[in-house]
């Protein structure tokens, strides 16, 4: 005989979440004589009874004051046969009904890196990564500086970067504390700092692809792809350490892709149909980034000529 298990609130890692049936009957209600006692004012003293009849568990509603929902549908019949995994809503309480022969998913592999459990490395490695990431962020800013080099400003922006990074990590740690009862702060810090460092490295070469390939579209595709990859990976690790989601990669990449698509659409939908300013590729990079071959002035004049011809034909349309 399968036993009936009642699970209240999915909270991973808690002991008193499940109540297992003893015998052929389980009663549920606010009254203290019940097998399962729920302090919910919208539940009757004697609300439900589960009976094991003919090899299956049958749910009977004993009080009709409030509707009882199984899988979000109100029960109208006097009794309902329970299948494993049914969601039950009674009063304001949500329960999951599971039978003891319910299959469990395969054991997930923990993301174990030895350093994470090492007494000192546990602190040292993330902090080194944070420093490295900050140095790279400041270096990116330094490379973009063209007038006076203000070191004070760089230090300030480096500190700002650290604060933002720690803020992001803290938020995920709090989520981890709630959902997994473990903040995993140092692991979050390491992975976030690592991926942001890679992102900063990439930022150093922003615009180089479109310049080297002489193609705005190619540059846009490659740069968006890089951004998606890095931010997706970062979010994946954030989710991995803070939640119990099964498909962290899928969720993370979808979220980043959707955000990018949303931003891109907002920027482009907001554009006016008529633009009185020219829209052109303004990237100019050092000689080492130039791969394309030069054309002659004669050929360039032909390019301008065809620009005129295209405009003329577009006007005729």
């Amino acid at each position, binding site marked *: 005989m399968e036993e009936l298990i009642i699970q209240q609130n999915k909270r991973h890692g808690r002991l008193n979440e499940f109540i297992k049936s003893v015998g052929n009957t389980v009663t549920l209600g606010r009254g203290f004589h019940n097998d399962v006692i729920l302090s919910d004012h919208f539940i009757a003293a004697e609300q439900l009874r589960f009976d094991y009849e003919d090899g299956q568990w049958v749910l009977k509603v004993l009080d009709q004051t409030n509707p009882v929902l199984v899988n979000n549908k109100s029960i109208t019949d006097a009794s309902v046969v329970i299948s494993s995994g049914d969601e039950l809503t009674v009063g304001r309480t949500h329960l999951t009904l599971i039978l003891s022969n319910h299959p469990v998913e395969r054991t997930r592999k923990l993301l174990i890196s030895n350093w994470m459990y090492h007494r000192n490395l546990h602190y040292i490695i993330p902090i080194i990564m944070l420093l490295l990431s900050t140095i790279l962020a400041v270096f990116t800013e330094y*490379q973009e*500086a*063209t007038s*006076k080099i203000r070191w004070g400003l760089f230090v300030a922006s480096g500190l700002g970067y650290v604060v933002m990074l720690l803020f992001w990590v803290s938020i995920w740690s709090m989520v981890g504390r709630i959902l997994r009862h473990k903040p995993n702060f140092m692991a979050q810090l390491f992975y976030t700092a690592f991926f942001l460092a890679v992102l900063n490295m990439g930022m150093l070469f922003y615009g180089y692809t479109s310049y080297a390939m002489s193609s705005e579209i190619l540059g846009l595709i490659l740069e968006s792809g890089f951004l998606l990859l890095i931010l997706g990976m970062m979010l994946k690790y954030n989710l991995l350490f803070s939640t119990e989601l099964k498909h962290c990669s899928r969720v993370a990449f979808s979220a980043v892709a959707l955000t990018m698509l949303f931003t891109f659409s907002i920027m482009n939908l907001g554009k006016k149909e008529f633009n*009185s300013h020219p829209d052109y*590729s303004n990237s*100019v990079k050092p000689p080492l980034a130039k791969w394309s071959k030069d054309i002659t002035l004669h050929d360039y004049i032909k390019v*301008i000529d065809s620009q*005129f011809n295209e405009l003329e034909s577009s*006007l005729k349309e």
Partner: protein
Amino acid sequence: MGIYRLVQWPMLVLLLVVPLQTFAAETASQLFKTLKQQVYQIRIIDKASGNKSTIGSGFQISKDGYLATNFHVVSSYVHKPDKFSLEYVYHDGTTGNAELHDIDVVHDLAILKIEPLQDKYFTFNLKNLSKGERIFSMGNPHDLSMLIIEGNFSGLLKESRFKKILFSGSLNAGMSGGPAFDKTGKLIGINVSKGSEQISFLVPAARLDALFRRAKKNGKVKDFNQVIQADLYRDQDHFYKKLLKKKWTSESLGFVEISGKLDKSFKCWGHTVDDEDILYEGVHKHCRSQDRLYISQDMQTGMFSYDYEWITSRKLNRFQFYTQVENRFTHGSFNNVRKNENVTNYSCEEKFVSLTGHSWKISSCIRAYKKYKGLYDVLLLLTSVDENDKTLLAKAAMSGVSKENSIEFIKSFLGRIKWKN
């Protein structure tokens, strides 16, 4: 005796000046009395509301009721004849409808025709006046009242490719299209715009004379857009052909030779960036034509400019240096068109081009005029990209130019750049 000597000269000057001023005031007052019936207020009426939307001045130039005014006074009617109508107001308040017969956007002139109320009109003085000669202008500023102002003929404007008379009097909005005349009441020019506090511009009467002849010969224009197109096309053709025919002078800028001032009507400026705070050195030269042709509230054309910037740095690394070049790699723009009914969007192309033994990134952006076939706004921008610490950034911007002229100009402009070593 001593006191008498002290006051004797100022007294003599006063005795001379007072009668002169009285004479001038009398002349103006007499001229006003004689000429006021030849000057009209021109109104553009918004048909939907029945109220005036633009006001200007105009004056009679023939017995049979031809009036002259500025094109910019009647431009909204030219572009939207269904939305607006033309009306004149006579000095005694009589109003009536006016017909537009011909326009000249290049010189900002228009010829109207009304049923004549009287047969007096302005005759033209096409001779050159001498600097300092007393001239007068009439008009109805801000719809207040018809008035006369005095000033001097101050010669012709040098920094314009069009002849414009400098008038040391203060024209105000609403006086546009009014007559400017000598002390005998003969027309010497048409009020057109204000420069600064006491400097205004007049279109010489000869331009009106030419337009009036054309109007009488060809009759009432049927398609004003066609006239605008033809006038603009002819004007740019004349300007660019003349510019391209000239022998261009060269100037030195850093390691390169560039073209100097291409026409005496252009204004050229230069400045150097070499503050210690800034880690690059820049020498900047730019020239700009001062002319703009008014087409409508949303469109101006006829502008032309070019500029060069020699940038070097010993303190910036190559990445930082090119970040700076990238920041400055922006097209010059006149911001001359505001609505898409007038022009297409810019179409841009960027290419790496070999010029004078060096490699350059060149961007060309072109947009076509929708109503005036064969005319374009063309922007050119280039920078050398094969040295780690020096570059020449050059720009040229042409508005209302034909394909052939812009291509010829670009060839000459690029061909003129010479790297010296």
